[in-house]
């Protein structure tokens, strides 16, 4: 399997996760409204909906890495000369990577503490399931970050070539 096809497959995989979560969220909220109007309110509807929202947010953030969709300020870096630009891109990538590696590790380590906690409206479900999104999405984020690293580097270098040509 080549690097490019793996990247495409990974993006497809994350997209399907987000689509499934989004559909589940929409269906769940609709069901909540319908049940409430028919007089049989679901107790767990809002808590599950907030959990789904958090899941969409964090899995979506991993997908956003692959799509270069995280909001940033690239203008300053683009104005730099080629050498510092590549250096800045590498430092920025390493900082992001370091944070998410830390987040994955800490997020995983608190799961065993949270196992004992239960959801308020669904006592048979552990909070750890809901919180598992943090370490999992952090790992997915790190993988995505590593996958786009060559692209970011190429962009930092490629623009350098264009700047030299025009100079």
């Amino acid at each position: 399997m080549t690097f490019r096809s793996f990247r495409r497959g990974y993006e497809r995989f994350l997209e399907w996760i987000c689509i499934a979560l989004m559909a589940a969220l929409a269906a769940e909220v609709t069901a909540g409204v319908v049940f409430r109007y028919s007089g049989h309110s679901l107790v767990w509807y809002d808590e599950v909906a907030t959990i789904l929202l958090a899941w969409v947010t964090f899995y979506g953030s991993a997908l956003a890495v692959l799509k270069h969709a995280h909001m940033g300020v690239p203008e300053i870096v683009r104005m730099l000369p080629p050498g510092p630009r590549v250096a800045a891109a590498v430092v920025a990538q390493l900082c992001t990577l370091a944070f998410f590696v830390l987040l994955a590790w800490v997020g995983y380590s608190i799961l065993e503490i949270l196992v004992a906690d239960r959801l308020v409206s669904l006592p048979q479900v552990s909070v750890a399931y809901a919180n598992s999104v943090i370490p999992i999405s952090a790992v997915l984020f790190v993988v995505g970050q590593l996958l786009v690293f060559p692209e970011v580097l190429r962009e930092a270098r490629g623009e350098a070539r264009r700047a030299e040509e025009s100079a």
Partner: protein
Amino acid sequence: MIGFLVLLCVVALVLINVPIAVALCIASVAAMLATQGVASLPNVPLALYQGATSFPLIAIPLFILAAAIMNTSGISHRLIDFCQALVGWMRGALAQVNVLSHMFFAEISGSAVAGVAALSPALAETARAFGATRAQQILYVSLPASLPSVVAALRLGGALVIVGVIVAQMLGAADGLGYLITRHRTLLNSPGVYAGIVLVLGITGMHEILLRRLEQKVAAYRQS
């Protein structure tokens, strides 16, 4: 002091193109490590998770979903066609259709704003094709194109500022118009209260008139 350092850290990270959300996280984690040590780290995933589980925010993805469904299934196009059929014969039909379709579905506002925003690049492209320099593009294309929004923002924002200042004076000041109104209300002195209210009305009215003058000056091509 540590707050200032955190702010500095965020700005530095954002400037080297770290995503803004991640820059906020990194700076906060650095501050936590510096002030409370490694033992405070378990708060990081908990705080991140807590921040995302907010029931009112569920509206955001659902609105985006609704807009996507409406755009891909052609609902929004049909809606605009429908409004066109209803009020399209009037003078200034574009604005009428715009308002009416918004009344039907406020969700379209996202794409409508995008349409307005998309107009300016096309104009800038044309100007560049005619050999305008970058300064000329900004002066003659971008600035005039954005003036209506700027003036409208001034009108709305200015009114909000007046309201904000007066409410703030009512709650926490020992002077000013808001304080006057609260004081007379506490003393059950109705004429005093109404004097304050009339003054506020006068100020906002003046603000409105002045900005309308300004709008006529800078955006004279816009009728109405």
